[in-house]
């Protein structure tokens, strides 16, 4: 099994606040890696470091290496737009653009100059199929995206992310704004997507991490306390902190 991303001694600072401390984490290719831990432990910051979305915040600084297929994404001269093309993202709240369903999915391929209009139709269809949404909305592609229900909107956001054919998908608590049925659909979808994509998911929900992920990392105050195969981490945690957190005594 190959490492898609290798994080080595990675530190991240908001001004003088040391948010991520010496992280070393392997992200396996075509597996789902879940990041758990209490609020403010740095797991979202870490996720946003993997496609350099933190760059958009003033006063931040990173040291160490994040190797994507062996190339450090923090090296000088790295094209962040190309990086984000390869490492896509799904956010906490469903956030479609206030445009049609079709235009939402087509936006990425359009700005990246990926396809003419014929090919674009095919990309849109494939992406919506990939997100398990095609059957529900194929007759109303020109409807406003915001007319969909929240669960559909979030799957539309997943379709929008996979439309640019990324290699890695980062998901930042993708189900926290969804009801249980919609959550289940997204989780099923993640298992299917993991056949093709490397997925990293941040979640507050430990059952979710246990259900969907192959590997789990436990964050505490900006440090990685424990990392391992999900089944092992939940069944026989090595660190006492991990055990007390996953059994609900700490958090």
């Amino acid at each position, binding site marked *: 099994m190959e490492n898609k991303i290798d994080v080595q001694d990675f530190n991240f600072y908001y001004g003088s606040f040391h948010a991520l401390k010496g992280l070393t984490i392997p992200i396996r290719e075509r597996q789902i890696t879940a990041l758990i831990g209490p609020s403010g432990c740095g797991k979202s910051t870490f996720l946003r470091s993997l496609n350099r*979305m933190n760059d958009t915040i003033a006063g931040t600084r990173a040291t160490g290496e994040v190797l994507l297929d062996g190339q450090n994404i923090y090296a000088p001269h790295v094209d962040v*737009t190309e990086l*984000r093309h390869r490492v*896509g993202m799904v*956010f906490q709240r469903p956030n479609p653009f206030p445009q049609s369903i079709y235009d939402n999915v087509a936006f990425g391929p359009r700005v990246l100059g990926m396809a003419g209009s014929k090919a674009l139709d095919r990309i849109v269809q494939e992406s919506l199929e990939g997100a398990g949404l095609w059957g529900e909305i194929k007759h109303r592609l020109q409807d406003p995206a915001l007319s969909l229900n929240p669960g559909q909107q979030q799957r539309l956001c997943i379709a929008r992310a996979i439309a640019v054919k990324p290699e890695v998908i980062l998901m930042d608590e993708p189900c926290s704004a969804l009801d249980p049925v919609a959550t289940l659909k997204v989780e099923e979808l993640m298992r299917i997507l993991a056949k093709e994509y490397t997925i990293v998911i941040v979640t507050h929900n430990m059952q979710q991490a246990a259900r969907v992920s192959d590997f789990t990392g436990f964050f505490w105050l900006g440090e990685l306390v424990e990392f391992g195969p999900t089944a092992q981490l939940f069944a026989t945690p090595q660190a006492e902190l991990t055990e007390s957190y996953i059994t609900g005594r700490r958090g």
Partner: protein
Amino acid sequence: MNRQQTNRLAMALITGVAILVVVPIVLVILFVLYNGIGAINWEFITAAPRNGMREGGIWPALLGTIFLTFGTAIISFPLAIGAAIYLSEYAADNRMTRMVRLAIVNLAGIPSIVYGLFGLGAFVLFLEFGTSILAGSLTLGLLTLPVVISTAEEAIASVPQQFRTVSLSLGATRWQTIRHQVLPHALPGILTGVILGLGRAAGETAPILFTVAAFYLPNLPHSIFDQTMALPYHLYVISTQVPGMPLEIQYGTALVLLLIVLSLTLVATFVRTSMRRRREW
């Protein structure tokens, strides 16, 4: 007085003050309408002034104001939109940015006659545009910049941050993000600012005094390097410089100018409300 009575009194006072604000504008409109409506007819709108401006119409001045308003739009729209995008999307919080903002605030406070003098020095004399539509439009363009930049910046800032985040996360460049996910949503707000600015420009006298406005010029301008008459200055001239001027023509001219400015404001309000209604987030 118990607190319920205080409440009622406060409500009454506040409502009264609010109504009081409406009274002057209504009175001004009615006053000008009452005195000027009699002068309005087809000839008044479409003919040149005659007999020392005591007869005939206002067409050269009306057309001049239309030209100047368009000229102002052409100059202030790109400048303001560029400055607003820079300030809200690109500018870091540094001394340069603070200087630009300070300049904008101060531009808004400069008396319009000073703009007029600046236009005379810079555009008419130094750049040798002469007393011309070009020089007048540039001067009026400067005058409207602060209000247009501020409204445009506000409109751009009101576009939800998440649109930018998502767009960037899909690999779009900053410019693509601004072009496709920010400006389209901000455009109605920006247009509102431009139209309000134009309403102000259309009614200003001082900035055009030395830069473009002709006292009496029955011929229409042929190019942007020609002088032209303009309504606000024409109104000033016929109100103060022409003895024996019929009152009705003065008020008729004022009425036309007032209608132009009011209709621009109405259009701006309409654009803004229809934008709010369409907005989905």
